[in-house]
């Protein structure tokens, strides 16, 4: 039954609202600017910053985030009283933050700075409060600077929604800040959603730009850039373009301008992963062993299994993740083809993710003593770098990826929740049945739902699959498997809502609505590709058939596979 909308009035203009919807949400939807710092459309209302003030028809000042729409409710967003009170609260809230901000130090592109300018904030009369200064590291993925924290609770709230609850507000009064859990049974999985939900960058990725720039300036190094599937359809937001705008070709041009010697693509790595993973799935199905098989592209999900559900370690695919696969390919196969020394190669991954920083530092992934990937920067770090170099990404001409970076449409959709599943199904189906797929799209595993389930017709058998986004949803599937171990044969899990396209390293603002628009960009990208199945990618065919196939089993293991171990807190 459709819900009956009610009329409400904002600045004397009529709008329709769902009954009970917050007035801030109504305003937001209709592009009426009400500033806010603790409210996020995907999170429960917190009501702490007291910036989103409005005045009702009785002259009462209220926060629009907590004010619910009722029939004929009328509010004004900028009365004199509201303006003054809002400015006072902004000044109180940002006075401490201002001098301590990681982004402010770079003096641009800071939402907080924009607020300071827009509302002409003057901190001169405000007495600074005592602050905590100890930076808390989330492994090498992210860090929390309590000095910049405004205690808006967004990071703690999203951490809880992801299914972890590692972050929480502690202390009281002016010392209120976010802190990591001391509970030995709760550990961070480095998904970085906290960094994508911090309105003032108090929680942010650990910046690796300086290391990348050093490598580029080192003439002895051959520096390769590879960009993840999800970066191309979101980076445009940093340059004022609509979410989902595909800037693949512009990104290649930009990476060359930044000084990279070669521009490859993680999408190619995704094609390798698909081949390795599909083969493993078929093997496990045949042997009826270690089923269901779980994907392991997402290091945050892998950390979740290793810490919270070690009993599932054998169910994770042993295939490495896409950028590790491709990084390894450059430092072995490509190095041999080009006649360069692997140790001179520096691989830089540009990812929508912070946990990829953590993954890249796993010693177990080293090949002949070398990291497959040397540095990982997020989409946001990439944008900061481009802006520092005054490169207007949206204005650049497009260019092509260097040959070894060629990829299929199956690799391109890896960024979406269900994308890894769909890519693997495209390959596994054809390899299992020996028939060509009539329809490449597996629509059952697409979409923004947290859990998707499907039964795929594999000719002589049905394959039961499930896709979970967020570990909270994965936990539901794990609980289901406890009751019925045969419920599924193949499960994809990504830690972030929407998959990597909704990753913790993506541009801010970061909402589920925006994530859906970005996702549409990925599927459009796939639909335009000529090669849309990983096993049809000629580069990957060459790599697998002419290089990998000739290696010993041990050498193959080193490049294509990985292992997992039970993790204790802070491992």
């Amino acid at each position, binding site marked *: 039954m459709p819900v009956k909308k009610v009329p409400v009035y904002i600045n004397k203009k009529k709008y329709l609202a769902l009954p009970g919807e917050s007035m801030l949400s109504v305003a937001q939807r209709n592009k009426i600017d009400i500033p806010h710092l603790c409210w996020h459309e995907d999170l429960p*209302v917190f*009501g*702490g*910053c*007291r*910036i989103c*003030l409005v005045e009702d028809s009785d002259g009462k*000042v209220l*926060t629009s985030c*907590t004010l619910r729409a009722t029939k004929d409710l009328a509010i004004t967003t900028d009365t004199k*009283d509201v303006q003054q*009170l809002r400015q*006072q*609260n902004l000044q*109180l*809230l940002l*006075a401490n933050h201002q001098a301590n901000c990681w982004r402010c130090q770079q003096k641009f592109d800071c939402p907080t700075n924009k607020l300071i300018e827009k509302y002409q904030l003057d901190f001169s*009369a*405000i*007495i600074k*409060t005592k602050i905590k200064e100890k930076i808390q590291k989330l492994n090498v993925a992210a860090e929390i600077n309590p000095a910049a924290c405004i*205690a808006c609770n967004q990071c703690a709230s999203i951490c809880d929604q992801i299914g972890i609850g590692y972050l*929480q*507000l*502690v*202390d*009281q*009064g*002016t*010392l*209120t800040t976010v802190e990591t859990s001391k509970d030995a049974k709760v550990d961070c999985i480095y998904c970085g959603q906290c960094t994508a939900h911090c309105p003032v960058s108090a929680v942010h990725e650990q910046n690796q730009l300086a290391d990348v720039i050093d490598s580029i300036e080192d003439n002895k190094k051959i520096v390769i850039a590879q960009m993840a599937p999800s970066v191309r359809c979101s980076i445009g937001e940093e340059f004022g373009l609509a979410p989902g705008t595909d800037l693949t070709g512009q990104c290649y041009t930009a990476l060359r301008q930044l000084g990279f010697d070669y521009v490859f693509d993680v999408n190619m790595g995704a094609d390798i992963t698909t081949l390795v993973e599909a083969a493993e799935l078929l093997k496990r199905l045949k042997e009826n062993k270690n089923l269901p098989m779980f994907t392991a592209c997402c290091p945050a999900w892998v950390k979740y299994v290793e810490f919270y559900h070690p009993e599932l370690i054998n169910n994770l695919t042993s295939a490495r993740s896409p950028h590790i696969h491709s990084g390894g390919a450059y430092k072995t196969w490509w190095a041999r083809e080009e006649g360069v020394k692997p140790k001179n190669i520096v691989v830089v991954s540009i990812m929508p993710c912070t946990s990829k920083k953590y993954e890249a530092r796993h010693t177990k992934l080293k090949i002949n003593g070398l990291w497959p990937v040397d540095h990982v920067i997020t989409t946001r770090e990439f944008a900061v770098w481009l802006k520092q170099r005054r490169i207007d990404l949206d204005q650049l001409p497009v260019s092509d990826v260097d040959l070894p970076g060629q990829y299929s449409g199956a690799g391109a959709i890896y960024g979406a929740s269900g994308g890894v599943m769909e890519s693997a199904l495209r390959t596994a189906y054809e390899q299992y049945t020996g028939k060509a797929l009539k329809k490449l799209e597996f629509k059952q595993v697409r979409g923004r739902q947290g859990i998707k389930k499907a039964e795929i017709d594999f000719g002589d058998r049905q394959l039961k699959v499930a896709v979970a986004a967020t570990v909270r949803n994965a936990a539901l599937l794990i609980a289901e498997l406890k009751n019925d171990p045969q419920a599924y044969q193949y499960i994809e899990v990504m830690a972030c809502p929407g998959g990597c396209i909704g990753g913790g390293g993506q541009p801010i603002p970061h909402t589920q609505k925006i994530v859906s628009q970005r996702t549409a960009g990925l599927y459009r990208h796939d639909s335009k590709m000529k090669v849309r199945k990983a096993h049809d990618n000629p580069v990957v065919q060459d790599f697998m058939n002419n290089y990998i196939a000739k290696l010993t089993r041990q050498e193959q293991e080193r490049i294509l596979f990985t292992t997992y171990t039970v993790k204790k807190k802070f491992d």
Partner: protein
Amino acid sequence: MKQNIIALLQKNQIIGRGGACFPTALKWQSVKKAKGKRKIVVVNASEGELGLFKDIYILENYLDQVFIGLQTALDYLNSTEVFFNLNKKYYSKISKSLMRLVEQYQASGYQITIYQEEPSYIGGEETTLLNSIEGKRRQPRIRPPYPAENGLFGCPTLVQNVETFYDIAQVAQGKYENKRFYCLSGKIKKRGVYHLANDLSISEILKITNNYPDFSFIAQIGGSASGLVLRDDQLAKQKMIGAGSIEIYPLTIKPHELLYKWFDFYQQESCGHCTPCRFGSYQLWQQIRKKKDIDWEATLALVNLMQKTSFCGLGSSLAQAVNSYYQNVINYYAS
């Protein structure tokens, strides 16, 4: 008795004695009406406001009456589940008699959990108290939903102050005399708790208790942090408000001393949830610490900000004290 307890509460105009003065019968009916099999009654013995010590007085002297009131509420709601939220400092003072009563009531099928709460002002705010009991961060919840529908562990919950339970017991036993407990403190002869008629003026209370000062004074009523400040000549017409307290200060008290007391209390007690209370109280406290002269314009602006934009009643309540003091005392004598 079950049938007419609501009528009796209404007839005797029983209201919440935690300070909010909400009609008790109405609160009971909302919990009764709320959906849910499990309903919980919470005793609020948090008592964190300055100048208030009546709850501990009642607990020490009339604990059996509190339990009778509690049982009345439980029986009305067909519930047996109680969380006794007790200021930690009070526990050692009453633990013997409390545990005896708990055992006695448990033997008759009631489940009573004693929760010792860290003493604080915000802890008395009912949704904060529910968070504390649940082991969550000590901060107020967004309302609605109200505790009556969705309170402790998501169940319909009746939260009531110690004195209210005492009053309910009196009503249930047909002994209610239209009295309330008054806490008298400050520069008076006999500090203490007095059980006197509801409708006395502040002057009358001071006179009856032989506490009317023989010097010029000001009084703060309904809490010594958030309460209303009045001159001695205003007290004959003023009845008690909020949670019943009167603190007497000599008229010669330095504004600096009084403001420091309030601001220090608020900056210590702010839970940190919202901007105006968290930083506003801190600014006020620092200003008064650092400067000899009081910048009234800046002070009143911050107090106004806290009043109009704070998340909960704690932050907004400071305005009553500061504004009334400014109007009734500072401004009055300046002009």
